[in-house]
């Protein structure tokens, strides 16, 4: 029991369950999932489907944060990916064929990889702090997306493309399957190879990692490229879901949601040990929170207030924990002499 209380996923899971139960109280059919025309429907499915882009981006963000970094550009990258694919479909001679959709997806993915490589280059080769390096793409990215779409909202009608965000396979929304596949892929990629451990090693102690012979540059590159890829796929989902590319609003504030999901999931912003399962739960909490606000009849935009409060509370919890740990040691008055602390 004690071990269960101490497990770092206990509280996030508890929070998720409480949120779901709260919804159930207000809407009796909340937890029910029904089969209709061979498709699964229900609030739970909606949460998963709407949360899919956040889950994807949060997966990439988890690895970036584990390596002591941060990627603020994911929203912009998602917008660019959507813009690239929709513009390609819109301008192609055969805008409704499967082949066109496939090329569009490939282009978007390549765009995501290139942008991730760019971030990784700025951080690991040029040596700019991650917040600042990704801020550049965050600033310019939406401009680039608008450049691609020529400032228009590009609507496309391509059934294959639309199915990414809105289609069903085996009764389940495709976006959920993609998110699940990405989750498994990230898990396998980091835990079947040594990447996960090496990312954690760099995130926990970069100096010792270097002395043990790790090539931090490759690892840093890898996490930002992965983050770019995740953001691109999320961008595809978002644009496919509305069958349009909106350079200004696609993925707006999604970087905040992703960071929030990672933090709720128990991964420290200081880097080091990470939990993909935790991030998944974190993302689901955020999506459920959004749904809850909706269920309670509060204007959906106000969700931002709740998210802000959650961030602050989670941060304070983690911070005060650190403080109690510090207090247990005998601490000298201050580190060195000559101090007059005033507040």
């Amino acid at each position: 029991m004690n071990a269960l209380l101490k497990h770092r996923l206990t509280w996030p899971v508890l929070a998720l369950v409480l949120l779901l139960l709260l919804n159930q109280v207000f809407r009796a059919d909340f937890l029910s999932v029904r089969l209709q025309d061979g498709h699964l429907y229900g609030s739970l499915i909606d949460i998963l489907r709407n949360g899919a882009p956040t889950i994807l981006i949060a997966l990439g963000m988890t690895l970036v944060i584990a390596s002591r970094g941060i990627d603020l550009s994911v929203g912009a990258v998602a917008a660019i990916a959507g813009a690239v694919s929709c513009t390609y479909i819109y301008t192609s001679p055969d805008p409704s064929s499967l082949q066109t959709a496939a090329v569009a997806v490939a282009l978007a993915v390549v765009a995501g990889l290139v942008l991730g490589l760019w971030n990784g280059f700025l951080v690991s080769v040029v040596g700019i702090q991650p917040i600042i390096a990704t801020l550049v793409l965050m600033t310019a990215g939406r401009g680039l997306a608008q450049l691609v779409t020529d400032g228009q909202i590009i609507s496309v009608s391509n059934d294959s493309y639309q199915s990414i965000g809105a289609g069903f396979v085996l009764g389940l929304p495709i976006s959920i399957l993609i998110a699940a596949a990405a989750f498994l892929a990230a898990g396998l990629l980091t835990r079947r190879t040594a990447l996960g451990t090496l990312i954690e090693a760099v995130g926990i102690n970069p100096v010792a990692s270097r002395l043990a012979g790790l090539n931090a540059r490759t690892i840093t590159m890898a996490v930002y490229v992965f983050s770019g890829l995740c953001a691109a796929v999320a961008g595809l989902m978002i644009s496919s879901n509305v069958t349009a590319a909106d350079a200004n609003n696609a993925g707006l504030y999604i970087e905040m949601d992703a960071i929030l999901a990672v933090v709720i999931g128990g991964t420290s912003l200081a880097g080091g040990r990470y939990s993909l399962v935790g991030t998944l739960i974190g993302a689901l909490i955020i999506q459920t929170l959004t749904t809850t606000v909706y269920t309670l009849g509060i204007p959906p935009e106000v969700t931002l207030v709740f998210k802000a409060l959650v961030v602050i509370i989670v941060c304070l919890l983690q911070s005060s924990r650190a403080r109690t740990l510090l207090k247990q040691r005998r601490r000298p008055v201050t580190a060195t002499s000559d101090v007059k602390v005033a507040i």
Partner: protein
Amino acid sequence: MSVVTRTPAPLNRTRISLLEGKARYAPTLATVGLFLAMFAAGAVMYPGFLSGQVFLNLLVDNTFLIVLAVGMTFVILTGGIDLSVGSVVALSMMIAAALLQAGWNPVAVIALVLLTGATFGLLMGLVIQVFEIQPFIVTLAGLFLARGLCYVISVDSITVTDPFFTAMAQARIPLGGRMFISPGVVIALLVVALAFYVLHQTRFGRTVYAIGGGESSALLMGLAVPRTKVLVYGISGLCSAVAGVLFSFYSLSGYSLAATGLELDAIAAVVVGGTLLTGGYGYVLGSLAGVLILGIVQTFISYEGTLSSWWTRIVIGALLLAFILLQKLFSRKVTVT
């Protein structure tokens, strides 16, 4: 959440090798030079560009950004960052519009808005300082919170019809030769002057620089480091509120989605203005020049009919990157063990 580590002054000192002596003005001078070059280029390329009013319009159209950049300069000089400013601008506009609509006295409205902004910033500063949480995550939460509070006030746009605000929006201060500025320009320039005075003539201002140079050293020198760190976020919040009022004078409305991404413009203006993101180096006048450069980019794009508005974002991003790389070059590490 990471605890800000109070490292003792590092053994490997970073020497700002190219910022030595008088050369410390170099980045700011580069900014001013760049501005003049762009203005000259504009004069050559477009008829009618070379006029006092084109220059003055850079000020008139960017009053709120100037004030924001001033607040951001304080924060960045200490080595922090404030991502919440855009949202606080929007919140200030919403509060102002809603209260004016409810028939409040405009002076009371402005006072309340300024008080709210300053309090908001101070609270963020307190969280950053007391709980030792990274500034970017706290101000990110601030961004969410302020934006969300806008929606709490109203999801729709509120028009401002208050006579004082409309008068301020329409007022023009003639400067002779058919040139004019708006009252907002006067306010913005006053803010710049006041910030310059505070940064260079008061112990508080010097403490801001000292913290950016080395927080633990500043502590050992007996400076009021914690108080100063909280106050800079208060100043940034206050500046955001002033910018919100100026933006209201400019747009005569309150809208929840207003000023999105403005924090990025403010950061870009400060960085382009020659302030080091790691803190300690930079001038508020540089930030003013940074805003003017962002403004002239916009003017260029509007003069060049074929370029679309999104080029502004791309160029700002490119400028931001260029200046970050310049800073990187300036502050090449000289390792002395």
